[in-house]
């Protein structure tokens, strides 16, 4: 088993999550917050986990280093970080990874800093945990890091308590905390949601700059497709604990294959005429209905969608779907330069299978020839609805 930076296999992704399941036992039954999620992340790349509240995106992100409260949260599946399965790793091993190689930035900077310690102490703490350095040296490092995240007067700010800083400054401090261990993977969970739009832009830029500087991979959790468009190389769309679609970012925006992704995009102001909303509610997480999780809210659902298991992820054929997607969204004319622009974005030279575009929808399944006609009918019927 590879222990450290020694092996960086080009074909092997930095992080590979396979069939991740996280469930919580509650009084009302077992809540399957994450129910078979798979995706990969290459070094230096940004992958976004997108979904509404309750989709399981945060639990997925926190399951990676087992930050979900372990009992009663149960994690199964495989989480390979540089080939090492973290689900089987000991708590000690995980601890040595957390902060040093896999760092986190959380949503609400208001609560994520300990109110009774100075921010300098909290940045220095990471250094002290992972390296045997003097308190003085750790502080010096902390001040450097605060300077790195563009905090004015870092040495003085290091002695400030969190409540003395603004929200944007606190989030900068948290980014400094995450950087302190020079991680290879940064998991950013809605880092800008609680911030004002002007501050949000600053933090996104900051993370992007630092990502390039440190050559970090970033797993970015967000509900905001605007943010996704801005930061992502690839996107994983989650719904009710399942992956609905996985695609390079421009493929997702230009040719969303899953009806859920399409619906989500249609909700965006300024995309097309339709001011879309998704009717209905999330399925019950303790007892999901059979078939596709989205079937009850899907405008294209056919009978088969309500039966059996959730459809497996199937590759999306490029030709037909781009056209179908093009009529819903409002993509630039012609979708030819897709490949070029995605290659420009991704830092990894050959991402191999991770460049794939897959969707968990019956319509994309290989053996769904019989109903192909129905789907076309449904598709066009939906177009008609939108035109209204």
């Amino acid at each position, binding site marked *: 088993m590879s222990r450290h930076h020694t092996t960086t296999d080009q074909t092997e992704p930095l992080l590979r999550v396979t069939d991740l399941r996280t469930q919580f036992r509650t009084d009302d039954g077992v809540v399957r917050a994450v129910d078979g999620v798979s995706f990969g992340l290459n070094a230096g790349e940004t992958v976004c986990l997108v979904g509404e509240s309750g989709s399981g995106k945060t639990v997925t992100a926190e399951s990676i280093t087992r*930050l979900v409260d372990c*009992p009663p949260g149960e994690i199964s599946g495989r989480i390979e970080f540089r080939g090492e399965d973290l689900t089987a790793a000991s708590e000690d091993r995980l*601890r040595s990874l*957390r*902060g040093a190689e896999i760092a*986190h930035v959380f949503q609400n900077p208001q609560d994520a800093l*300990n109110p009774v310690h100075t921010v300098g102490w909290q940045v220095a*703490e990471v250094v002290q945990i992972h390296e045997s350095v003097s308190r003085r040296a750790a502080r010096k490092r902390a001040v450097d890091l605060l300077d790195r995240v563009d905090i004015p007067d870092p040495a003085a700010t290091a002695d400030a308590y969190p409540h003395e800083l603004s929200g944007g400054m606190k989030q900068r401090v*948290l980014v400094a905390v995450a950087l302190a261990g020079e991680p290879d993977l940064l998991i950013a969970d809605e880092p800008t949601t609680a911030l004002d739009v002007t501050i949000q832009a600053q933090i996104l830029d900051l993370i992007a700059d630092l990502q390039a500087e440190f050559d970090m991979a970033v797993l970015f959790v967000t509900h905001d497709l605007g943010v996704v468009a801005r930061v992502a190389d690839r996107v994983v769309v989650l719904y009710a604990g399942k992956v609905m679609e996985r695609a390079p970012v421009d493929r997702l925006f230009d040719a969303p294959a899953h009806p859920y992704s399409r619906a989500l995009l249609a909700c965006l102001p300024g995309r097309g005429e339709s001011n879309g909303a998704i009717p209905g509610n999330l399925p019950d997480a303790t007892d999901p209905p059979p078939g596709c999780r989205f079937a009850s809210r899907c405008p294209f659902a056919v009978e088969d969608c309500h039966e059996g298991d959730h459809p497996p992820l199937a590759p999306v054929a490029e030709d037909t779907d781009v056209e179908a997607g093009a009529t819903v969204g409002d993509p630039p004319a012609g979708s030819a330069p897709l490949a070029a622009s995605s290659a420009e974005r991704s830092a990894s030279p050959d991402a191999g299978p991770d460049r794939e575009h897959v969707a968990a929808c019956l319509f994309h399944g290989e053996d769904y020839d019989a109903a192909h006609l129905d789907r076309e009918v449904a598709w066009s019927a939906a177009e008609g609805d939108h035109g209204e």
Partner: protein
Amino acid sequence: MGMKWYVVRRVAWAVVATYLAVSLTFGLLMVTPNAGADVAAAQAAASGQDYDAVRERYLERRGLDRPVEEQYVDYMTNILTLDWGYSFSQGEPVLAAIGEAWVYSAQYFVPSILISALLGYGIGLYSALNRYTPTDYLGSFVAYFGISIPNFWFAIVLILLFGVVFRLLPTFYDSGVALLSVQNAKQLLLPVVVLSTASVAGQMRYSRAQAIEYARSAFVKTARAKGASEWRVLTRHILRVALVPLSTILIADVLAVLFAGSFIIETIFQIPGLGRLALEAIQQRDTPLVLATTLIPVFIAILGNLLQDLAYVALDPRIDYGDR
């Protein structure tokens, strides 16, 4: 600016509270018939003297027939100058009686406070971090047991078990034993256990609830994400933050439970401490001693509250001084 004002205000408040407490006891004395005079008069009447005359003479000799304001000034001066009067039931000045008694009280009181705080916080925090484990359930059980069991009954049952049935420990306190001896430790064991059970349970329940609240908080998650060990998370993050609310109840709560408990403990185990002194004073209607034994816990409580307020300054950088 803010902090200095805050400290000044708190100290001033402690002084005012002390003044009000002492005045209150004076007020109570004024509105009730003088018990000592009644006793003296009744004794005199029994030996053939005139009841009213003796009573009046008693009051006159103690200056109790003077105007209220005069007596008040006198009373306050005496309290201030530590001239707390003479206890006829003990046959010595009140302060001397207290001076002898407090040693015995402190012997079990101090260990009880320490045990309450250490054990209570320790178990509480531990079970907060290990929720839904057998240890947590055991901890909760102990907590419910501790706050629910009447300490006088608990003491009796323990004496019955360890003193009478198994004959392992003495059934009552012997003041003749040397302070630092195994014998003394043995005879203090049951009183300390009984007295601290309730407050350990209370501290434990509260600290567990607090710690659970903080254990779910985002900053603890941040600490875990840094790779901090459970111990570090517990001591540097949860405990450090939880100390703020915990410190506010430690003193008030522990003192309240222990004061009440000390009367019972000293009665059951026959410890000649302050609690017993107070009870005897009440039974013998020895007013100066009753007042003194009332005021001492009050002073301790006021001091405790002051310390607790000041602890805030040291513990919580967020404190809004203007608001308190």
